[in-house]
């Protein structure tokens, strides 16, 4: 069984700038595949090449095993949901959904039946006569998707379609999109810069940076076992410590942080070279406030609380390890245990070395989402 979409060695250059460099991946039929990356990483260029709007400088694109590298967009079995949706304001909802069918030369009752079926499927059965301007943001979204799905494409491409929605509706649409995809069984390729969208909806996520895929895997894999410093910072939240690896007396790996704290490192960090600075990551949710002294093998560090960031179940503490300028985020469980903590307090935080991750090199600047 061939893959719904297969991309081999895809490359695109704009002048001297390589926007997409030698990317290869396969998407199985019926899967939800996301490409996650910061703005400017080349993900839109990649998508436009798959849709056919850009001609690649190298590589091939196959749909269901058929090479479509030189086929123009209007004859590819793939449809794109645009970032701004691009619904046709000069037509009503029915005509928008029927547009692709009419371009195929379909006529009469067949068109009406397919369009009405599709409108029902996306939950807007009686909106055919409405004008585009009469629809709400979420409804426009669904019509834009219906307009593509009615053509039964091999792959549906989505270019950050939730970007323009407000936060509440975006949360809702995430779930709805996932359900819709599961129902229709069409292969979705979704690009976004929002890691939460990618994680919630996808079967597989590819993290893209500077024109290449850094890592491809399930959301769980990316979260628990990132293979690069970039993925560790981009997927989920992470605290970054610059450490200098060394060995303790028993020869086990250890890391010196800020010249004053010595951390126990996981065995996975054994390959790091002693004396060469590297990055260590510990997720906020993996950090424990005031760990009991009866847990041996824990890393502990005295910190000063700079701020309590209350956000319901997502509350955090912003703390500064003593004697440093770094800011560390620690999850603050709302169990009542830690309600006494105030800004300015000195507390201990700790974590199990087994869940910390290390990457060689100091990675330059930390990734900044802004």
């Amino acid at each position, binding site marked *: 069984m061939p893959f719904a979409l297969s991309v081999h060695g895809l490359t695109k250059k704009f002048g001297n700038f390589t926007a997409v460099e030698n990317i290869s991946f396969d998407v199985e039929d019926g899967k939800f595949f996301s490409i996650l990356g910061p703005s400017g990483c080349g993900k839109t260029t990649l998508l436009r090449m798959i849709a056919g709007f850009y001609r690649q400088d190298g590589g091939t694109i196959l749909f269901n095993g058929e090479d479509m590298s030189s086929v*123009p*967009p*209007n004859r590819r079995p793939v449809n794109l949901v645009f970032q701004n949706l*691009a619904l046709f304001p*000069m037509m009503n909802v029915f005509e928008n959904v029927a*547009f*692709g069918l009419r371009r195929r030369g379909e006529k009469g009752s067949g068109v009406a039946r397919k369009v009405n079926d599709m409108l029902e499927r996306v939950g807007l059965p009686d909106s055919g006569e409405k004008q585009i301007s009469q629809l709400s943001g979420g409804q426009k979204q669904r019509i834009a998707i219906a307009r593509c799905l009615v*053509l039964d494409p091999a792959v549906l491409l989505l270019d950050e379609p939730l970007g323009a929605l407000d936060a509440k509706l975006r949360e809702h649409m995430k779930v709805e999109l996932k359900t819709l995809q599961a129902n229709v069984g069409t292969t979705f390729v979704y690009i976004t810069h929002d890691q939460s969208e990618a994680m919630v909806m996808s079967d597989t996520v590819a993290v893209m940076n500077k024109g290449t895929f850094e890592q491809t895997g399930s959301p769980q894999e990316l979260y628990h076992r990132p293979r690069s410093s970039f993925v560790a910072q981009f997927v989920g939240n992470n605290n970054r410590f610059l450490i200098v690896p060394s060995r303790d007396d028993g020869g086990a790996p250890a890391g010196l942080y800020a010249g004053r704290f010595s951390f126990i490192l996981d065995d996975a960090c054994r390959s790091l070279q002693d004396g060469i600075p590297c990055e260590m990551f510990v997720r906020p949710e993996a950090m424990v406030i005031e760990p009991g002294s009866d847990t041996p093998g824990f890393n502990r560090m005295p910190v000063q609380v700079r701020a309590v960031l209350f956000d319901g179940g997502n509350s955090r503490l912003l703390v500064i390890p003593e004697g440093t300028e770094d800011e560390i985020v620690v999850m603050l469980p709302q169990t009542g245990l830690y309600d006494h903590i105030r800004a300015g307090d000195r507390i201990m935080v700790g974590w199990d070395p087994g869940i910390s991750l290390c990457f060689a090199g100091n990675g330059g600047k930390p990734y900044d989402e802004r």
Partner: protein
Amino acid sequence: MSGRIRLNWGFLFFFLPVALWLLLLIVLPHAELLRLSFTSSRPGGFTLQNYMAFFSEPIYWLTFVRTAFYSVIVTFLVMVIALPVAFYITKVARVRAGGFLMVLILVPFWVSELIRVYGWIILLRESGVINRLFTSIGLFSRPIEMLYNDVTMIMGLVYTSMLFMVVPIVGVMDALDDSLIEAAYDLGASKTAIWRTIIIPHCMPGMVSGGIIVFMLVLGSYLTPNLMGGKNSLWFTEQIYNQIILYFNWNQGAAFGFLLLLLSSLIIWIALKVTGQNLGEVVK
């Protein structure tokens, strides 16, 4: 209270010139022309003879129909040429090149219409540039008169009115989101289908307002049909000119003037009805 008085003065200040302009240059002359068209140079009261003369003399109403027909054709041709030109300026050329192209379209209009028409005459006449070039390379065995026929006149009218169609269409086409074109392409539309279903419906208000301007300009133009069409291609404005200036028959000229006004209003009304636009939307 004082604020209200000042507001009224301000309103008057801006309104008065407009009112005077409308009254003195539009309403009064037309009222007088209307009166003239229903009277005769000979003593006597109300008469319909000026309008009767139009229908009884074939040369008059034939010129009238010709003028209307050719004006529609010119408007249509200008539209057909202006659409791709506007598309190139707004969507294909880069931003700065687009501005430069607009200037290129505008520049010829810095020269008066008379000079531009003489430019055509220099190119097209029997001893003109084109004839000399083609006879010297052996394409023509002898010079051909290219002036004073319908085709040349229509070409001249298309050329003189192009700007007035390109500018409004560029305006609306600029507002067309590129992603709509891409979306149509992505959904399987061919290039002609994209023009038919997306670009032209979107540009309709600009096309109609440009069409009205061009149609009225062409219908009422005198210089270009006269100089490029000559005696072989009579235009209705020439009939009005002849009546008033040559025959000194103001009454007949006035009647012709009103018939022309009626004609342009009627055709524009039909065009608006056919395209489903309304005047308020179009002039916005």
